[in-house]
């Protein structure tokens, strides 16, 4: 069946088959390879995209059921030139090792800071809690997010 999706600001008409997931459509039909498949069952966050304004695991969203929706992927959060503050922060802090989890963290982190000007560390940790990383031990990812927060003029509140 045919569906229409607004992907990173542009409307696309896509022919999808039964059971095809949003993740498959993004990677295989639209060639947006930033979004990764880890567990494939909603547990790891590698496939996180913003669907109608909220981060969701695209591996368990069936494309045929979201006709007319708006999707933003990590590519849509990356400027044409250079990188966004979160991507830069993660690099600066050494928060990218194999990098497989990174797009998911960028999506979750961007969504968090878009909605919050002042935040506590535990709020930030909670917002990232659906993203798993097997390499960094999280400390450097958190550091990278905090570097980005500072650059974006965000304020850390006491717990």
């Amino acid at each position, binding site marked *: 069946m045919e569906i229409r999706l607004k992907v990173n600001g542009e409307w696309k008409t896509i022919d999808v088959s039964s059971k095809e997931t949003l993740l498959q459509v993004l990677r295989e039909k639209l060639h947006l390879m930033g979004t990764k498949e880890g567990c494939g069952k909603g547990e790891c966050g590698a496939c996180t995209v913003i669907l109608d304004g909220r981060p969701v695991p695209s591996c368990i969203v069936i494309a*045929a059921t979201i006709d007319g929706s708006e999707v933003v992927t990590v590519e849509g959060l990356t400027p044409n030139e250079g990188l966004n503050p979160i991507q830069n922060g993660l690099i600066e802090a050494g928060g990218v090792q194999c990098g497989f989890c990174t797009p998911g963290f960028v999506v979750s982190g961007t969504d968090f800071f878009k909605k919050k000007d002042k935040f506590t560390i535990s709020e930030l940790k909670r917002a990232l809690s659906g993203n798993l990383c097997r390499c960094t031990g999280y400390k450097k990812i958190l550091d990278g997010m905090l570097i980005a927060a500072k650059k974006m003029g965000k304020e850390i509140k006491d717990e």
Partner: protein
Amino acid sequence: MNNIFINVNNLNDLLTAKNEYGKKAKILAGGTDLVVRMKNKMMDPEVIISIRKVDELKGIHSKKNDLIIGSLTTHSEIEENSSIKKNYYPLFQAVYSLGSPQIRNLGTIGGNIGNASPSGDTIPPLYIMDAKIKLMSKNGERIVDIKNFFKGPGKTILKDDEIIHSIIIPKGRWTKKISGFYKVGKRNALAIGVVSVAWIIKEDTIRFSFGGVSPTISTTEIKKNANKKKVEKEVLKAISPIDDIRGSKNYRRDVILNIVEKIKNDNP
């Protein structure tokens, strides 16, 4: 199987579709249960009716005597509602600790109930707050006590042409001071290794409901001044834990007894 997907845009179309396809059709709300099951080849419905766009089933509404939560309201939306956090605290705590941010953004309360898992996190809080469920079909509607809705793991009284319309909670003030929700064991997609407890204090009595230790949710009432032996007797009457790969019967029983004891001690 090549499933047939039907996207309905309003309640009337949903009821018409469910009436037409009946047993063959599964409703897909957030899909966090259904899609994972399909991917694991545990389920392959012939027809899937996606209800994402049915606005009539969304949102939290305060009526004179009741709080109404539309079945398609997501866990995130419930968590962000200030009145739920203040006055329906056990439900707030349940959705606050459910899955991950991404799962809470997609998963709905109607799906949590429709799934009828003995460890569905929203169910114990709804039990102790005496919630009712409004069911609807092309031929009418009925309101049932949540206690009568579940028949066993994965089984409900929903008829083939019926849908869950909303959850009705009688107005109350179940604040942080007098109520709560507690869960032990990490939850992932299909594991039901958790034990959960919701509780409310009513004068000299504490009401408990337990998840994950019986085929459906179980409830009991315990006097605050009851001794340990009496507590144990009451709790064991209410629950019927089983052994499985995620935990033994004895482990589940001991966890429940310890949580009950802790809640009792915290609220002298």
